[in-house]
């Protein structure tokens, strides 16, 4: 499987986390830029879910199918949950929540590769 999408997600997640932590350090609140970046991350994650589902539909199976399905459900929820939880916070700690989501997205890609090595990073 082409590793371009997971690699893009890792880079995007880390860049988002870095930017969000900078906003926390500068004592800024949640911004439209952070929400838009979360939206981009969400789209990328949905594309990745689509690619994996297509592969499953093609008849291929990983060893830990249950775990993989858990990841497919949880992955797209990360940016959504972070957006809600971060927007509720009207201080510098809102962006910090977004930073966590960016890091989690990156880590999830590495874990996906470990669960099913055909998903290249």
């Amino acid at each position, binding site marked *: 499987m082409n590793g371009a999408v997971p690699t893009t997600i890792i880079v995007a997640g880390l860049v988002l986390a870095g930017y969000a932590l900078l906003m926390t350090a500068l004592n800024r609140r949640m911004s439209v830029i952070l929400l838009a970046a979360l939206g981009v991350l969400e789209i990328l994650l949905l594309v990745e879910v689509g690619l994996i589902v297509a592969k499953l539909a093609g008849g291929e199976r990983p060893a*830990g199918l*249950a*775990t993989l399905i*858990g990841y497919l459900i*949880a992955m797209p929820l990360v940016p959504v*949950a*972070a957006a809600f*939880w*971060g927007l*509720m*916070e*009207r*201080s510098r*700690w*809102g962006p*910090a*929540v977004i930073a*966590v*989501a960016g890091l*989690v997205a990156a*880590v999830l890609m590495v874990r996906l590769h470990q669960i099913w090595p055909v998903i290249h990073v």
Partner: protein
Amino acid sequence: MSEPVASPEPTASHPDSTRTGPGRVLIAIYALFALSASARAGVQIVTKFSHAPVAYLLSAFAAVVYVIATVTFAVGSPTARRIALLSCSIELAGVLAVGTWSLADPATFPDATVWSGYGSGYGYVPLVLPVFGLLWLRRWNRRARTRRTIITSAGDAGEAADGSVDHRHQETSWRRSG
């Protein structure tokens, strides 16, 4: 005489609960671990329990601890804070005990738990998380005690003056850093 310091001031920039401010980040990470540890332990216990029973039961125990921490930090009442203090302490003791155990006796852990190797499989976040949890709780308990002291001393200004001035300084510095 007016005592302006004792007002709770639940404004946006000053956290008014363990749920807000840095607590927001703490809860996000605890929720993540609660979810992933529960799901992982559930899958392991259902599909291959006999492979590593000790490891899987410890994972399940860790999952319960994370769920309790998530809920109690989110609720934030004095009772919830007391439960959170207990669960964070158990969590820290658990990471240290299981971490040491997994290094001393690897045969018992053919498969990793969340707390194996002091949480090395999870970037040592499981080791750091309870420390931050306990620090966050200490900040809150100190604040609650301060407020009680000020309220008491407000009605009894003559005797408790020294103590209340000192505590008031503590709370001000707390606010500035928050």
